[in-house]
């Protein structure tokens, strides 16, 4: 589903004489198959988010290749990358990233509107996902009127409404309580089973890692696979 090959990335900070090059990722390679849930764990500053940003096409790596659904995205234009994201990738963010001016329903509808899907189909799908995630009673609420758990469900519905084959989740349970976390993880699992959606979850939460088929550890910019019992 997604294939990262020899990814290296460095950040340049400072200017002119004070310019410093900070290497973040060193020759990272891994691939995730269709239907897998893969969690990437690591300490803060280990390069987890950078890796996710490269995988999503938000960031161009200093070196390496990224294949999303068999399409190489590093060399593509911003326009093409946007098209590939819209078609293939759903996003779940730690701080939900909902549009404050839009209601829950309008937020969920965004990917379908961007795809130019007709109103009838949109309405049918949004109803289906709101019911599935039990948020249909708050569909006309604005994000500020929702609890953290409800906001993350709205974000999951938005990520899934166009049924992408890949979902990239950045600390999806980072801002919710333990009870909500369990329900969100259960939702991810059920979506994975029902739709065969591939999930790559950035986390440092062991609970999240426990629902994954595989867990990858990022340490000092290098990746290594860890066994389930090692995660704990």
């Amino acid at each position, binding site marked *: 589903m997604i294939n990262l090959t020899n990814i290296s990335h460095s950040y340049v900070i400072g200017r002119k004489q004070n310019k410093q090059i900070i290497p973040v990722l060193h020759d990272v390679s891994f691939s995730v198959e269709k239907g897998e849930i893969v969690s990437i764990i690591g300490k803060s500053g280990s390069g987890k988010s950078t890796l996710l*940003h490269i995988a*999503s096409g*938000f*960031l161009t790596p200093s070196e390496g290749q990224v294949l999303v659904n068999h399409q190489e995205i590093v060399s593509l234009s*911003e*326009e093409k990358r*946007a*098209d590939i*994201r*819209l*078609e293939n*990738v759903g*996003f779940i*963010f730690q701080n939900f*990233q*909902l*549009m404050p*001016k*839009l209601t829950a329903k309008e937020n969920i509808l*965004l*990917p379908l*509107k*961007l*795809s*130019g899907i007709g109103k009838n189909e949109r309405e049918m799908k949004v109803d289906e996902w709101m019911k599935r995630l039990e948020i249909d009673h708050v569909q006309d609420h604005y994000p500020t009127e929702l609890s953290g758990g409800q906001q993350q469900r709205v974000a999951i519905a*938005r990520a899934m409404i166009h049924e992408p084959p890949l979902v990239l989740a950045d600390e999806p349970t980072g801002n919710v309580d333990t009870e909500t976390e369990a329900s969100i993880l259960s939702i991810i699992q059920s979506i994975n089973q029902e739709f065969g959606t591939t999930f790559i979850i950035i986390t440092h939460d062991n609970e999240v890692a426990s629902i994954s088929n595989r867990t990858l550890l990022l340490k000092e910019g290098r990746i290594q696979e860890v066994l389930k019992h090692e995660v704990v």
Partner: protein
Amino acid sequence: MKWSEKLEFIRLNMKQNKSRNFMTVLAIVISCAFLISLASVGFGLQETFENELKQGQKITEIQVTGKEAERFDDVHIQAKDISYFKSLPHVKGVSATTQLEQSPLISYKNYRGAVGAILVDLKEEKRTGFGLSKGTYPKNKNEVVVGNNFAVNLLNEKAKGLPAAETDSEYQERLKKYGLHENLLGKKVKMTISQYEGKERKEKEYTFTVVGIGKAPAKEWEVDNNIYISNEWYKDIEQFTGTANGMTVPSAKDKLADEMKPTDEMSYTKVSVYGDNLENLPAVSKKLKDDNYYIYSVADELKNIKTVFLLLKAGLIFVGIIAVAIASIGIFNTMTMAVTERTREIGILKALGCRPSTVRQLFLIETLYLAFIGLVWGIVFSYVISFLLNKLVPFVLKEFFDIKELPTHFVFSSIPLSLVLISGGLSLAVALISGLRPAKKATQIDVITALK
């Protein structure tokens, strides 16, 4: 993303800062109204000048006043010239008239009057637009057409011996009282011409039937009291007077001067060539000029006026555009702030798969949307201002600047569709340019930074 959704999204965003958007739109309304109103003065004054020039004249007319020649006699337009004009392409007709160079006496019952007599081919005149208010065109040389004011200028015998009228109102009063107020259609009138033969003054009388009354002249102050007789009478009149164009010897003492002697040719006092339409007129004008004819045409005059006014209008529009440019700074600020305020939203949209070009479009459409609302209201206000200017300016000119009479078709401000389209196009273009930079800035927003 469909257009309806883009517009819905833009409307939603615009609702967020109503007062700022209102002020931006207000600035555009004022600048557009200023631009259109200012330029409308140029259009209005041009309309006034053109109306004045066109009044009573036919726009496709080219007056031929003579031709370049070595001999003085050859300067005049003659029958062969008329035939040549008729043979030219794009010539609809040629009007060639000869004013009799004496005022013949017309008598009808006990009414008399000295009028102008014009020798003319009315069949050709009909083709060139000589209109009748009543009756028909003559079918033979004994039938005539008279001018619209012909009858009233024939005075009753009772008016004989009255001193000359000193004022125009006195003269009008006299016409009302003593003038002939009878429809002359179908009536016979007598025309008497005279000439000195030695010491003796001889006269010749012609009897004509009036079959048509000419149209009233276009200008209110113009009168047409002429009698239009067939130019078939030319030779006959010339034979009687022994002079060209029926000239009279001033007094019994005077002898016939050489230049008064008749020529074999009929000489025309007014010759006009009519083009088939305005587009072909320059070609006809050029041909006549190339053939060394002296010409004057309203269309040429209009062309010169149009050039002068084009420069004036361009100048006024340029000044107006400065106002629009100032308003566009407001648009630039509004849109730049909008981009800054919506950085996170733009980041979310881009993260979800919105193309940078779509983001650019959203901001450009928003810019144009603001400009369009401003433009529509600006146009509405311009029409109101134009209406008020046309009401107030004549009043102000008369009351405060001691101008007693303005041109009949005085228009101070006029807003033709072309002005609306030019101003609209320029305003939208300036707005679009001012929105380009903020829109580009929006597309360059980094998703990672925006979502932090």
